[in-house]
């Protein structure tokens, strides 16, 4: 692999200001990095390098080792072996203290912000104050406003974090890293929480930073983003580097193959819906409270017919979570009606809902989907263990029947597990999700609520789950597919509704899908305003 041809597209026009780039990072190399966790080899000797002025994408599936590698660079983990070379000199990074003082900043997947503190207080945290042991928030606010203007990242230093939307919180993280003088910025899956428009804006900012001489590492598993923003791409698979290639010349298909290690299908053929099915799931003006204590779901109305997939798009935290839970019987509806197969089913227990043919793939599979310490077989019968087939006289479990049924599911759903009595938490995300799917589909549901069914799942399992969902659709199941991955929603759904601040703000039918249009709805631009501007 020659990267001799590689040239940085930007000049090294260093803009040295008082704060923004006191630590010059010309190059940073990680050589032969090994990380061993108890029982797992997370990184098997990875080489990686980044230079000033470039955006280097780190691509790989969940569990490939991207975050682990970057946490080592940021000092949150210690490598088992290998070295880090900064501007040609080997360095050791024991903690975030070392990385920050060398000019490395990181935007974590889970934001490192304190919700009750203001933007300025979050920036002040851990820094020396100009006024000794007193806080100097005024001076910080002034500097933040300057940075905010320079990079076109709008923030209000005085507002507490908990009042900010996720996109704004991310801006705070980026500005904080810049304020701290980061010359190298690591972003861990930064677009997961953004609308397409917000992502575009982020890309503009990152390109500006690179043009000013910052080095940027962009972690992602989304192929089109990586192609759109990076100069070079390093692909990781199973803790090892597959290759590092210049972005020019790479394609989605070639990258996907590198990630997975075999040819993959990226687009599906979705046959047109057969006959118009009956309405199996109907919501009439359903509202529900969120954990924050306000109305997280407001007057939601929708219909899903048998043999149809209704996609729900939206930025995380706009009511999708409440929508899924209220239908699944896990959250009370404060008003409105939920009708399943013609029967009013508002505020009834999940057990009764199950008998009425509702299956639910929850968003947080380790919390609401499975019991981590239970075995694969026990998790398989979590819902149905009271049924005659699995008990002796309704009193105690027939473990042999349970194991047999589970073995069948393992075979049918191609679940990779050492056995039926392995604690399920030892399985990979994709295999756990397949088991949840097997359990939920076992009773041939009429209605399936699939919330983020492929989040944190590898491409192979994602492909499999998508095919299963399409099979269910062909069988006549009404499917509500809630996902923050717009590509997924567009690939599978017959119709898409968009949620914003707890409301359904728009609907689009297959054939009229347009990322800009859906993205604008996700950002709260009303359908009318969109038409006016068109």
């Amino acid at each position: 692999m020659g990267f001799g041809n590689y040239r940085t597209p930007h000049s090294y026009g260093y803009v040295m200001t008082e704060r923004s780039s006191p630590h010059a990072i010309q190059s940073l190399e990680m050589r032969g990095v090994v990380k061993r966790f108890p029982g797992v080899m997370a990184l098997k000797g990875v080489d990686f390098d980044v230079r000033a002025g470039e955006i280097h994408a780190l691509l790989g599936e969940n569990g490939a080792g991207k975050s682990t590698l970057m946490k080592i660079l940021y000092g949150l983990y210690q490598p088992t072996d290998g070295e880090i070379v900064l501007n040609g000199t080997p360095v050791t990074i024991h903690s975030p203290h070392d990385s920050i003082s060398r000019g490395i900043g990181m935007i974590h997947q889970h934001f490192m912000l304190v919700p009750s503190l203001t933007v300025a207080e979050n920036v002040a945290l851990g820094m020396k104050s100009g006024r000794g042991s007193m806080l100097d928030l005024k001076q910080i606010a002034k500097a933040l406003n300057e940075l905010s203007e320079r990079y076109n990242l709008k923030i209000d230093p005085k507002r507490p974090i908990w009042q900010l939307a996720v996109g704004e919180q991310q801006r705070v993280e980026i500005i904080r890293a810049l304020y701290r003088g980061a010359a190298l910025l690591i972003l861990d899956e930064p677009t997961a929480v953004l609308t397409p428009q917000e992502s575009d804006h982020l890309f503009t900012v990152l390109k500006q930073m690179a043009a000013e001489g910052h080095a940027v590492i962009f972690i992602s598993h989304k192929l089109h983003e990586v192609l759109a923003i990076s100069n070079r791409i390093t692909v990781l698979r199973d803790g090892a580097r597959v290759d590092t290639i210049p972005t020019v010349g790479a394609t989605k298909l070639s990258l996907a193959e590198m990630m997975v290690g075999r040819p993959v299908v990226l687009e599906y053929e979705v046959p047109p819906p057969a006959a118009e099915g009956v309405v199996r799931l109907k919501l009439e003006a359903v509202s529900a409270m969120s954990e924050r204590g306000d109305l997280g779901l407001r007057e939601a109305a929708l219909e899903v017919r048998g043999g149809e997939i209704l996609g729900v798009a939206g930025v995380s935290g706009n009511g999708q979570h409440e929508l899924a839970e209220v239908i699944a019987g896990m959250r009370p509806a404060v008003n409105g009606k939920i009708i399943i197969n013609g029967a009013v089913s508002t505020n009834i227990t999940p057990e009764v809902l199950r008998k009425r043919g509702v299956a639910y793939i929850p968003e947080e599979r380790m919390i609401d989907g499975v019991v981590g310490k239970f075995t694969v077989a026990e998790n398989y019968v979590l819902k149905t263990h009271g049924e005659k087939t699995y008990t002796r006289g309704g009193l105690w479990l027939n473990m042999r029947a349970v194991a047999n049924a589970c073995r069948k599911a393992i075979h049918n759903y191609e679940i990779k597990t050492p056995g039926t009595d392995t604690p399920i938490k030892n399985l990979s995300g994709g295999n756990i999700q397949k088991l949840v799917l097997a359990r939920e589909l076992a009773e041939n549901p009429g209605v399936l609520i699939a919330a983020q069914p492929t989040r944190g799942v590898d491409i192979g399992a994602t492909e499999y789950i998508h095919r299963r969902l399409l099979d269910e659709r062909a069988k006549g199941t009404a499917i509500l597919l809630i996902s923050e991955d717009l590509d997924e929603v567009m690939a599978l759904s017959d119709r898409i509704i968009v949620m914003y601040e707890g409301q359904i703000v728009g609907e689009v039918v297959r054939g009229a899908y347009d990322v800009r249009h859906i993205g604008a709805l996700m950002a709260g631009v009303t359908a009318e305003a969109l038409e006016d501007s068109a």
Partner: protein
Amino acid sequence: MNILEVLGSIFTASVAAATLRLATPYLFAAIGETFAQRSGLLNLGVDGIMLMGAFSAFYAVLMTGNLLVGLAAAMIIGGLMGLAMAFISVTLKAQQGISGIGLYLFGLGMSELLFQTLVGTPKSIQGFPPIYIPGLSDIQFLGIGRIFFSQNILVYLAFLSVPVSAFIFNRTNFGLKIRAVGQNPAAADAMDVSVTRVRYATQIIGGVMAGVAGASLSIALLDVFQQNLTGGMGFIAVALVYFGRWKPLGVMLGALLFSFVNALQLQISAVGIQIPPEFSTMAPYVITIIALVFAGKQSERPTALTVPFQRGE
């Protein structure tokens, strides 16, 4: 005796003065515990530290006759017990509820053992005298001079600790670190704040203040030591932190409420009203439980309370 006379004989300036006096141990202990809780540590052993602080202050005064030596002894013992608690909670990451109860039982037993071995029979000492603030202590109007300006030094210090701690929490770097560590230790860690160091510091502050709280009983208010001198005041102090919603001012209001009930209880029995003493003894605890039920959710609540921090989890 008509009802007004009864009320008049109960709500007197001496009750008001006693309220401030009795608030002192609650305040020291609860403000100290606020430091610990704001950083995410629950110390149920406050009462044990108070007992050890009370004994060490009492014993040091008995031996040396010097009140400041007594106070210093309570601070040192309190600080050491805070350090022990920090080691257990932060370094060993033990269950804080259980280890706190352990610390309490240790303090309860140890203070009595030491008292029996070193002192033996009940003795009293000369505690901190009232300080009459010139000019102000002579104000006769509503008994203000007597209530507010004729108290001993520890009473003044206890009330001073309220604005001082509020200032530390809200205006200083250290306070910001405490709040951040209690709310999102992972974020604080990623921003180069040592979670361990901050939590050790707050727990030691909490220990020192609990020690002083004990000393305020044995060498300023009661001037004696006996078995279980505190009678569970340390537990009330922990509850007061919840009651006051982790804010020094709220903690102070709670402390005043409790000490007022205490003072009233003394006065009622002094006046000779026939209420079974058990009721008035129970009252503070009942109020504590009610207050806790209504304390509910709060944005200032340290969300990492009782959760040990482990980097990378």
